[in-house]
């Protein structure tokens, strides 16, 4: 870094409010009510989180069904130092989680104390936030499965 360079803090903020439509809005409504929804695809598989169109066939999604709130970690990465914008205060693991009743995994955090508690294939369940608005962070994260619902 050169010493004689002028520097100034610069913050870019975009206060996006996005309209959701019936598919994404349906899924987010489910989150608000502590219910997980998946999209039925024409080949009979279930996609969670649901997209408005099937990425394989381009067919519109017309049916959202309830799926499980626990599932299996398909891959993970330890986040020892949460980044400033992430909705996780303590070190956590990024993970792809395939929920029971879904055929595709979703991305979220797993709230455990250290990386030793993580393994691919482990069972986890949703921990809901108390205050929910219809937002992906209504899920506080996943925790190792205990059998008790979120």
């Amino acid at each position, binding site marked *: 870094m050169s010493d004689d360079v002028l520097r100034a803090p610069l913050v870019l903020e975009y206060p996006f409010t996005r309209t959701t439509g019936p598919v994404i809005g349906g899924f*987010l409504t489910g989150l608000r009510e502590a219910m997980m929804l998946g999209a039925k695809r024409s080949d009979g598989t279930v996609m969670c989180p649901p997209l408005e169109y099937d990425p394989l066939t381009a067919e519109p999604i017309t049916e959202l069904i309830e799926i499980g709130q626990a599932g299996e970690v398909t891959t993970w990465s330890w986040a020892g130092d949460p980044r400033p914008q992430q909705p996780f205060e303590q070190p956590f693991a990024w993970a792809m989680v395939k929920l029971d009743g879904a055929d595709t995994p979703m991305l979220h955090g797993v709230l455990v104390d250290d990386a030793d508690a993580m393994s691919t294939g482990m069972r986890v369940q949703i921990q809901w936030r108390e205050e929910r608005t219809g937002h992906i962070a209504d899920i506080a994260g996943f925790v190792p499965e205990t059998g008790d619902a979120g």
Partner: protein
Amino acid sequence: MRDVAVIASAQRQERSIDNESEVEFMVPLMQQVKESVGLTQQDIGFTCSGSSDFIAGQAFSFVMTIDGTGPVPPISESHVEMDGAWALYEAWVKLQMGEVDTALIYGYSKSSPGSLRDVLATQMDPYYVAPLWPDAFAIEALAARQMLEAGKVDHQRLAEIASRARTHAATNPHAVRRTEKSVEDIMGEAPMADPLRPSDISAAADGGCVVILAAGDRARELSDRPAWIRGIDHRTDAHTLGVRDLTQSMSARIAGEKAGVGDDKVDFAELYAPFTTSEYVLTEALGLGDDVVINPSGGALGAHTMMASGLIRIAEAAERISRGDGDRAVAHAGSGPVLQQNLVCVLEGE
């Protein structure tokens, strides 16, 4: 198909260019390239660039860079919010249509003012993923663990890729990570984005690249040994991570087939691989064997200038062809999380 070739290029990459703005460091590159083939801006048929305002946080910075071309009288111009390699593709299409005989292409960014790994979270799905702000290293790490646990690749192989990239980068004056490191030492590094180690991750740089394309006789007239584009194709995978197999790249494989990678012997390849795992996936997808020298420049592991690194791969490959260091090369550019988009270009000398 019309014969189109890369006839000139210039690049600059540094860890941080904090004493010049983007346009200030791009203008000398544009001038250098045009002068090297004796063209002025008014001789150029089409100008196309790739950049993103999010990288430096400068709204509409790309319109300021247009001033660097000297667009008076007004020029025929376009811009993509993609790596400059996609700008090159647009220019190549324009040349194929026969509308123009020459094109100027550039890509650039200054990522040092911000945190690139975090800024890249803004390219993710805005409803389900971006609000969680997964940084780019974390996303690749998820793919890396799947590759490792599926036994497709091991840490030894990734460390070999990292070590070889460093050895190559040490000979490249534009690389920013130029210290050699043994496979053993890399294996001993503590994970940075578990399971990825620091040497598995590209070396962020500020900078840019400028390329001139010319068609047919115009290329032969302006260059002693043009690097002919014998095939070029780009493909995209689905955006949603959950519906993709992150351990392989269908889009790179198809782009490679369409570009004709396997039609003849490949002397070397310049691949946009921001992670060692990306390089593994790409060599598999493109069917590049052990006889192919991968990233003689050191690749993005040696210097990663967002929005330019793909174009730099094409420029590096073309320059080696023009110098006579090889007769047939593959150049690749990528974009998006876990290389969602892939562009493959086959270059040949005559």
